[in-house]
Every structure is written in C-alpha cells, then in structure tokens.
C-alpha cells in the first residue's frame, strides 16, 4: 500500500463472461493511490475488458470494483476525475487534433484553454490544426494521451500508450507518467514493452487467460524469481572446461556471449568461484542478476514465443 494507504482501484472477483468464454474470471487486485501500476498479460488475457469495466463501458457479469472509492456501477461519480486512453486513440478523422480535443473538453466541461496547453505538452502544438486523418500513428497516440490528460486526472488509465511511438516518443511518455506520478496521480498502464513497465511501475497486475496471476509490488515479484549467476572466465578458451566442471558439480548452465549463465541461488557464487579456482581458471567477473520483468512474465505466462 502507498503512503496514504488508500486505493485508487480495487477489484474483487470481477468477472466478465461472453457466451461460454470468461474474458476475466474472478479478478481481484488493488492499485494503491499515487502509484504507477503496470497491467500486463498476453493478447486476449482480458486487460482491455478489465479496463472497459473499470470505465463503465462494459457491465461485469459478476464481482465488484471501485475506482477512486466509488463503485463501478456509478461511473458518473468518478469518471470526471479519470483520464483514459483505451485500445489506441479513436478520434474523428475529418476534425483537426485541436477540434477533437475541444469536442471532448466541451463534453466533459473542461476549460478549452487546456487544449492548447495539452497539445504543447504532447508536442503537437504545430500540428494541432491538421486533420486527425493526416496524423502518423505516433501523433495519433500522442493526441490520445493529451485527451486522457484533459480532466487533470486523479487516475490515469492508459492502454498501450507507447504503441507506434519512436524511442524519443516512448521516453516522453515515460517522462509524462513519472511527472504525473510525482504530482500524486495514480497511473494504471498496460503495455507490451515490459522493460518500460519495469522502469516506471512500482506495482504490477498480471493477467493470464482471464485470471489475475500476480498483483503486488514489482520488486516483490522479481525478487521471488530464481536469480542467475553470470560467471565470465578471464580467457574464453576456458569456457568449455569451466562448463564441464560446473556441470559435474550439478549446476544448470547456459553459455551466452562468452559467459556462463548459471541458474542458482546467490549463495552458490562462492562455491562457483572456488570450483573455477580449483580447476585453474580465473574468473574476470562473477555477478548475480535477477530476471527481468520480461523473463519473469514469460515464465509466469508460459508465453515465450
């Protein structure tokens, strides 16, 4: 839980069934207020369905949820304080970016002066007058983010915000998210770029086949995974000899880029060092690394294709 102990989103047994297929089955998770929470899962795992239920666009088949302390049965009570970009940006192609934002600002009762401010924030100030249909994918995505920021939200829900963005655009989104989080905004963000999420998310909700398989601190998830010991011999010719020595000692080894990756607890590093020394091999480095979020994700979801 965060410093104030309040939750921005809380789902309990949230379920959505289409015909005989459960898009989300008894999903329970909590997103603490003021945190940046990643929402990950393979395609079709139920992320967008969950987001749509939280925004009142889809009626759950069962369970309950609250957003900013209000039940999702009454979205009118919390949506004025929520910004959202769902499943990519959707705007009127014949209207300019500026006009599109004005439509949403008028609808939500937000000052029109925010429109130009937000266009500048997402680096679209000079193209605000161009028709949406002339925008590149990255520009469309940035306009979607600007639209989500219109209400100056307490909670920002972003579904794949970095799709189609170039590296500098991705960095910009990361900066925007961090700035918002520093200002106290809760950010609930789904993305396929797990390295991005690892960098910015303190919390994670992980889905697989409509089920929540993890909900909690990112660090908690990563530290629960088996670490990897990376041992690099001083001379590359010693790689095979070292592999044989360690294999005989019962370690599982993979050779990657002139180094051995050994799946073992961190306590084993001393023994590995000793075995190498006893075999007459000098190690130029030995380090312990935790698996990345991506590796953890693949291991947990079994989706490593």
């Amino acid at each position, binding site marked *: 839980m965060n410093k104030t102990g309040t939750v921005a989103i809380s789902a309990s047994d949230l379920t959505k069934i289409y015909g005989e297929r459960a898009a989300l089955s008894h999903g329970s998770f909590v997103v603490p207020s003021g945190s940046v929470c990643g929402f990950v899962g393979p395609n079709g795992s139920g992320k967008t369905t969950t987001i749509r239920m939280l925004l009142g666009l889809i009626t759950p088949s069962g369970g309950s949820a609250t957003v900013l302390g209000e039940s999702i049965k009454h979205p009118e009570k919390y949506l004025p304080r929520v910004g959202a970009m*769902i499943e990519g940006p959707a705007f009127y192609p014949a209207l300019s970016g500026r006009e599109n934002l004005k439509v949403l600002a008028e609808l939500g009762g937000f000052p029109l002066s925010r429109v130009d401010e937000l266009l500048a924030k997402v680096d679209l100030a000079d193209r605000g007058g161009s028709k949406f249909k002339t925008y590149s994918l990255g520009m469309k995505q940035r306009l979607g983010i600007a639209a989500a920021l219109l209400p100056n939200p307490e909670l920002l829900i972003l579904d794949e915000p970095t799709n189609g963005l170039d590296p500098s655009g991705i960095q910009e989104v990361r900066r925007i998210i961090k700035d918002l989080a520093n200002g106290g905004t809760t950010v609930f963000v789904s993305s396929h770029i797990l390295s991005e999420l690892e960098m910015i998310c303190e919390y994670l909700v992980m889905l697989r086949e409509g089920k929540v398989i993890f909900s909690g601190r990112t660090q908690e998830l990563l530290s629960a995974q088996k670490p990897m010991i990376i041992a690099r011999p001083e001379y590359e010719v010693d790689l095979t000899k070292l592999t044989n020595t360690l294999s005989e000692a019962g370690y599982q080894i993979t050779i990657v880029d002139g180094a051995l990756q050994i799946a073992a607890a961190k306590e084993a590093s001393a023994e590995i060092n000793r075995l190498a020394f006893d075999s007459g091999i000098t190690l130029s480095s030995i380090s312990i690394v935790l698996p990345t979020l991506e590796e953890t994700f693949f291991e947990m979801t079994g989706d490593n294709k």
Partner: protein
Amino acid sequence: MIRVVIAELRKLRRPSLLLGTIATVGGLSALFTSIVFLMIDSEDGNTKRGESIGPKELSEAIGLVYGFKLVGVFLGVVALCIFASQTAQEYSLGTLRNLLVRQPSRMKILAGKFIAMKLFALVMVLFAGALSIAISFALAGRAKVDTTEWGTSAAMHILFESALNIFLATLCFGTFGMILGLLFRSPISAIAVGVLWNLILENILAALINSTRKWLPGINFANLGEGGYPDLTYKHSIAVSLSYLIIGGAIAAILFKKRDVAN
C-alpha cells in the same frame, strides 16, 4: 446535456459535412424549384409524377412554396443519411468510448446528439426554403407567374406552415436514420437500409398492395411534409409516424443504454 449539444454541434459544423450538406440541399432545392418554373410549358409536366402546374396556380399564394414542398422529401432523405452516419460512426470509429468516458450518462449523450442534429436539420430546411423562394421569385417573370399573391399574409401563413411540416417530416426521416444507426452501428449499413427502404421498397410495396400505403413509415413521413391529402390525412400520418418513432426510438435507446461498448 447542453455540453453534449455544443460538442455535437462542433462535429456537425465541420467544413466537409456542413459545406457538403449545403451543396446537396442547395442543389436539390435549386433543381426542383427550377424545374417547376422552367418546364412550365413542357408536355412532360413540371412537377411530380409528370403532372403539370401552370402559371395560374403558381400565381396563387401557394405558388411561393411549391418548389420548396417538392424538395421536402429529399431533405428527409438527406437528414436520414446524416443522422444515421453521425450516430453509427461513433461505433465504427470507436469514438463512443471517448464520449462515454467524458459523459457517462448514455441518455444525455443520445438526447444531446438528437437535439444537435435537430438544429442542423432546421438550418438545412431553412436554407433550402430560402433558396427555393429566392429562385421562385427570380424565375417567376420568365414563367409568366404573377407574384402579387406571394407577399400576402395568406402566403406567409402557407410558408410558415409548409416550413414547419417539412421540418417535421425531415425530423421523422432523421430520427428513423438515427434509430437505424443505433441498431446497425455501421454508417454504410444504416444509410443503405434507410434509403433502400424509403425510396424503393416502400414504393414497390405500396404499388403491389395499395392498402399498405397508409401504414408505411416513409410514406407517412413524406405525407407530413406535404401537409396531408384527403386519402391519407395529416392526422393519420402524425399518429403512424409517432408510433413508429416512439417504438423504434425506445428499442434503440434501451439497446444504446444497455449494450456493452466493446469496440
């Protein structure tokens, strides 16, 4: 709800739609009014179904709005297309989810859209009427039509009544289009079904089984615009039109309110 109306008007006043509608409506109004006056001596007739109307009839007070009344049903078809596309495109473009996040009350969205489109239809009817009257005055001399009666209070009364009837008929067609837009959720499907039904299928049906004419929606909507006839009264058309629109509107509104927004 006012906020929804203002937001919708912003979409409706986009140049491509506004100028396209003005051009279409203006073109139709100019075409039908011109035919009445320019083909006044034609043996093929100068009004609907090859009938003829001469300078004597056109010199009466009703002559002022004769062209305008002819274009009425086409204004209805234009309204049907606009109402249907403006409603269905929210689904096909995926923009409905944005609207509902900013205004969660679905009934307010629907009502706001309807009011904005009504205002758009009113502008369309007034423009078509003004253009038709201007063309009527411009061509009256050439067709040897005396326009003295056109300035009388009787003519003003007929003009007001005709404009109101055409606006009402346009609204009925538009609402029908909006219902189709909500049901089909695709602009092309909604427009195709609406236009095919009103312009082709109803006429075939009425020609094959004459008794159906009294109960078909499009024929009754159009009859409102023309002010009614002895064999199909204005009162009857009001009742039939309202019945269709209230029942259809209720079904579409319930679907709009309850249906998941999954695209």
